[in-house]
């Protein structure tokens, strides 16, 4: 699970008031320094990674000189490229499935008063908080017993299982702020419930669906432990490959890879923020 998941779990409507009290204002400076230190702690390894990705030395010890060699080698490395492709396929499929299941689930749980809804909600959240190792192991034994051969499909199933609750929860948070008369108005105007859902509700939920889907995608791209148990050799994911390579020593190619990942994800985030702002306008 990643932090955006944590944010989604405890997502809440904002009130956005500023503190006006003066009693603890003097603490603010100290807290600011503390927060800066926390950020330094969070970013130290990232900086190290990026800096060493330009280092000619193979061992991450001393700075020798600047090179782009590792970035070049990265693209010639067959297993990295192949597993990257696998990861993209798996993440895309898992995201698509998660978006469909999660959005529909959130809407239905919102619209209907199901019996055992509370229990159901807890069940949905189980894969979010369940220890990855237990989930991976239980899926592995399940696939073995059910006679399902491991492959791309099993990884996609596993990833969807822990991704869709994140979409569901994100959409649920958005639904809470939704005006219930919206759907009623559409129904009164003669739309079928399905059309009302497509034409009225889904557009309102779009930011939540997008951010939920984005979350599902990043979660799937980064997942290691569950994949270790559910992937076949030809469906290995990028994190599995990275894990295998990193286990046998630090490799500057992996530094380069993560530097690229950081740049891409930051761009991704900025883009989705931009989308969100457009949607909220």
């Amino acid at each position, binding site marked *: 699970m990643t932090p955006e998941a944590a944010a989604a779990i405890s997502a809440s409507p904002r009130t956005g008031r500023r503190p006006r009290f003066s009693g603890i204002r003097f603490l603010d400076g100290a807290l600011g320094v503390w927060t800066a230190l926390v950020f330094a702690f969070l970013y130290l390894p990232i900086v190290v990674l990026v800096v060493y990705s330009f280092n000619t030395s193979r061992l991450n010890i001393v700075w020798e000189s600047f090179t782009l060699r590792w970035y070049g080698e990265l693209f010639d490395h067959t297993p990295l490229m192949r597993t990257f492709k696998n990861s993209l396929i798996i993440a895309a499929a898992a995201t698509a499935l998660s978006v469909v299941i999660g959005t529909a689930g959130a809407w239905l749980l919102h619209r209907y008063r199901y019996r055992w809804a509370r229990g159901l909600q807890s069940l949905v959240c189980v894969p979010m908080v369940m220890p990855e190792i237990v989930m991976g192991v239980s899926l592995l034994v399940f696939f073995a017993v059910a006679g399902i051969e*491991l492959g791309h*499909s099993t990884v996609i199933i596993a990833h969807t299982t822990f991704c869709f609750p994140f979409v569901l929860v994100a959409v649920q948070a958005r639904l809470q702020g939704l005006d219930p008369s919206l759907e009623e108005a559409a129904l009164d105007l003669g739309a079928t419930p399905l059309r009302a859902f497509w034409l009225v509700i889904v557009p309102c939920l779009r930011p939540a669906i997008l951010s939920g889907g984005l979350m599902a995608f990043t979660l799937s791209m980064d997942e290691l432990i569950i994949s270790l148990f559910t992937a076949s050799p030809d469906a290995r994911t990028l994190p599995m490959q990275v894990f*295998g390579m990193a286990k046998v020593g630090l490799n500057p190619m992996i530094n380069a890879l993560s530097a690229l990942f950081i740049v891409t994800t930051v761009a991704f985030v900025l883009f989705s923020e931009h989308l969100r702002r457009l949607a909220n306008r």
Partner: protein
Amino acid sequence: MKKLRHLILLGLAALCATTAFAAPKKKKGELNLFAWSEYVPQAVLDGFTEETGIKVNYETYASGEEMLAKLQAGGARYDLIQPPDYVAEAMIKNDLLVPIQREKLTNYGNLLPEYLGMPHDPEQRYTVPYMVGTVGIVVNTERVKDPVLGYADLFAEKHAGRIVVLDDGRELATAALYTLGKNLNDFSDENLAAVKPVLATWFKRVKLFDSDSPKTALLNGDVDLGLVWGGEAALLWKEDKKFQYVLPAEGAHMFVDLLGIPKRAKNVENAHLFIDYILRPEVSKLISDDFPYTNPNGAARKLLSADQLANPASYPKVDRKLDTFRDLGDAAAAKIDELITDLKNAR
């Protein structure tokens, strides 16, 4: 309407994705290789793919047990595996390997006879040797001045907190058996009880357990001595001559890593092609270049440089017959595992 279409497309994509992958695909051009980490150079795999068009999926493990576990859990299907000798012996006993069709291996004759017909596969029906090696002690002679000749010196009090060992129960228990002067394949309850206190003392002095790449910690300077695979020591020696390799005085064993085809393999033909490719002298030399274990391929050895052949960890000077591991049976293996878990958590 546009959004509707988007969603429908998304749903369709999801459906296609799952159905496409749900159907078991019959790809001809694939080989699922399940092998040790740090053992098969990427150049060899790429060369094989280039020549035959067969895509190689290389998955790794760090111990024979890990390989067996993944194989036995079901689900994943591999075409070619790389069991160590004693695991291969157990697999043959339990009918988990298919016989090798030797007539398909045109380069089989390159193998040195001394590595064929060993006890784990006396008729050499199920396996083909890949690489051979020893397990020994490596010492950073810049930091450790006193001579280290055997296990007793390695695990001496003064070296506490400076040692890396393989994270492999069988290897560690064997070293303890050697120091007690016992047979390395005799894990009777009595012997297990005897090795326990020895291992307990050793474990207190070990800084790091690592089977994947014990050389890393040595190179990084986090530890100064190690009980490691010969090939790892050979790489260290190649990097810096200060890393000296010693075959322990109390006793040392040799391991043979083999190539074998598991029962549920899908691409048996491709597996044979790959084995034959590996047996070519020039390909085998590529493996030795990257992972300098003892090469059982006589023709390939002729291609190695004098420097490579002089590497004491690759081709140690042996004045005695080296032992090999035998299959202990399930009960003893489980007992070793329990012993190691106990000891690791005793503190």
